């Protein structure tokens, strides 16, 4: 079987899960597509999963109420072994890329990380992935009875529901005692769409001028067009915006349909996080800013003047 660990939050199946279903269908790997739902109170997610898989395995346990690398790795490896999985697919989120290597070591399996394309030839699985701060596309290949793969969010089209719903089964797990104790948590809540799920992102850089301008222009435009809000490292380092909004090498990697960069210069580390966006739109008063080299549409001009006009126009 192809075992996909479902990503979900707030009782909803994540878009990345549907993208992994497509990746599984396109990969040429053998076996029924199986979604594994880990969590507590996940009946709704399990029901939603059934439309996309041949079968759904559900571990609804209080210990799994919050993500933990050791628990997720142990659960995934155990199910992969019992089900003789040919492929284990895990989302390329921060948490997915944290526990997937542990699963690979547990299964003594090769690990293909952050795949953007998957193809099979014989028993080998080939993956394309970005390297060198996303400046290079590499093809890597692995063979084995089981291969662990993480799938980069935004790289595959979300799957359509299959004609028949897959059967659901409860699974039993032997879980270790987690050795990391979480003593506090700060969730950076936003009423807007999550960055890694957003089709359109508006990002602000230092060029927007101030935290107040950031609210007025970046958030203002995002709200006018229903987009997510991103920030550059400089803006986060300056304390204007929370880290959760940071896009780039040390922040989130995003691949939306449209990425609108306001007052962003376009350092390599930032480009590595957003350079694969389908359309890049840049507004910056510095005509020499590197962001224009990767832009589909660019306006050399003052964010203070152009963005209010954009917001007004978008609201028409």
């Amino acid at each position, binding site marked *: 079987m192809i075992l996909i660990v479902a990503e979900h939050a707030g009782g909803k199946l994540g878009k990345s899960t549907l993208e992994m279903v497509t990746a599984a269908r396109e990969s040429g790997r053998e076996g029924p597509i199986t979604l594994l739902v880990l969590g507590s109170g996940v009946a709704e997610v399990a029901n939603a999963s059934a439309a996309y898989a041949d079968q759904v395995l559900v571990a609804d346990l209080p210990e799994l109420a919050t993500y933990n690398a050791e628990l997720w790795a142990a659960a995934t490896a155990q199910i992969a072994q019992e089900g003789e999985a040919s492929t284990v697919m895990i989302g390329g989120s921060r948490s997915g890329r944290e526990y997937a290597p542990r699963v690979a070591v547990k299964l003594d399996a090769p690990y293909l990380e952050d795949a953007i394309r998957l193809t099979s030839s014989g028993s080998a699985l080939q993956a394309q992935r970005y390297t060198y701060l996303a400046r*290079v596309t*590499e*093809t890597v290949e692995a063979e084995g009875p089981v291969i662990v793969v993480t799938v980069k969010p935004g790289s595959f089209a979300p799957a359509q529901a299959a004609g028949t719903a897959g059967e659901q089964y409860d699974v039993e797990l032997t879980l270790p005692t987690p050795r*990391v104790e979480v003593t506090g948590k*700060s969730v950076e809540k936003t009423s807007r769409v999550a960055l890694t799920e957003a089709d359109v992102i508006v990002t602000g850089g230092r060029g927007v001028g101030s935290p107040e301008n950031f609210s007025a222009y970046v958030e203002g435009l995002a709200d006018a067009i229903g987009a997510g809000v991103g920030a550059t490292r400089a803006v986060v380092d300056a304390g204007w915006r929370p880290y959760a909004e940071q896009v780039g090498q040390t922040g989130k990697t995003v691949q939306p349909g449209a990425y609108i960069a306001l007052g962003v210069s376009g350092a390599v580390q930032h480009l590595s996080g957003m350079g694969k966006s389908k359309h890049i739109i840049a507004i910056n008063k510095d005509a020499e800013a590197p962001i224009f080299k990767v832009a589909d549409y660019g306006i050399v001009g003052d964010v203070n003047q152009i963005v209010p006009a954009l917001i007004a126009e978008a609201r028409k």
Partner: protein
Amino acid sequence: MNILTLVRQVPDAEARVKINAQAVDLEGTTLVIDGMDEYGVEEALRLRESGAAVEQIIALAVGPKRVEDALRTALAMGVDRAIHVETSERLDAVALSRIVAQIAQAENIGLILVGGQEADWDSQALGAATAERLGWPQLTWTNELKIEGDVLTGRHDVDDGNESFRATLPAVVTTQQGLNEPRYPTLPNIMKAKKKELRKDDLSQYGVQPMVRYVNAEIQTRARRNHMIDGKDPQAAAAQLLELLRNEAKVLS
């Protein structure tokens, strides 16, 4: 306790990356110690300076002869000694973790520090794979760290924000921006570093085989439209941009 800090050598972020014979060619490229690993080296030094019972800080690099330079940088920053597993073979993170785990055991390591994501592989796997091999907990994307006795506390980023944590050593910690500001090696320290031990190991000692084959590398740049809109009249520019986004790019409704 001994700390092991892992060091990779990567192209400078601003360096141009070339492809030759379907592989990345680093000939003539400016190479530096990976910035994320540098946070790890700095953190090891700071933990000792802040009074944690750190006996030795050991830097480890696996790679061709040239990675000595990155180890020399770590030595000049203040680590006590270095181990270089010399090989031109390209090892994936899961295979590489086998070497790191063996060295951690042989050197009686209590804490491993490694960069959150390497700037050459764009991989986040080495810390986690090493932790699993050793049966240790891991804290990834850490931006605050304290050690008291054998208790590790701090804060790290997770999918939806950040968490404070507590764990018992031994552990693996992956580092990132915000954790500290790495120091520059001073000239006297660079001179001193030349006398520090830099042990050379052979890959064959570790019995490690790559698990992933590298098939091809290419630089694919998406052709961008580079359609520039005159910004002199903000109203007209805004109207034109929205029209293009709606009707040409079809990204807005």
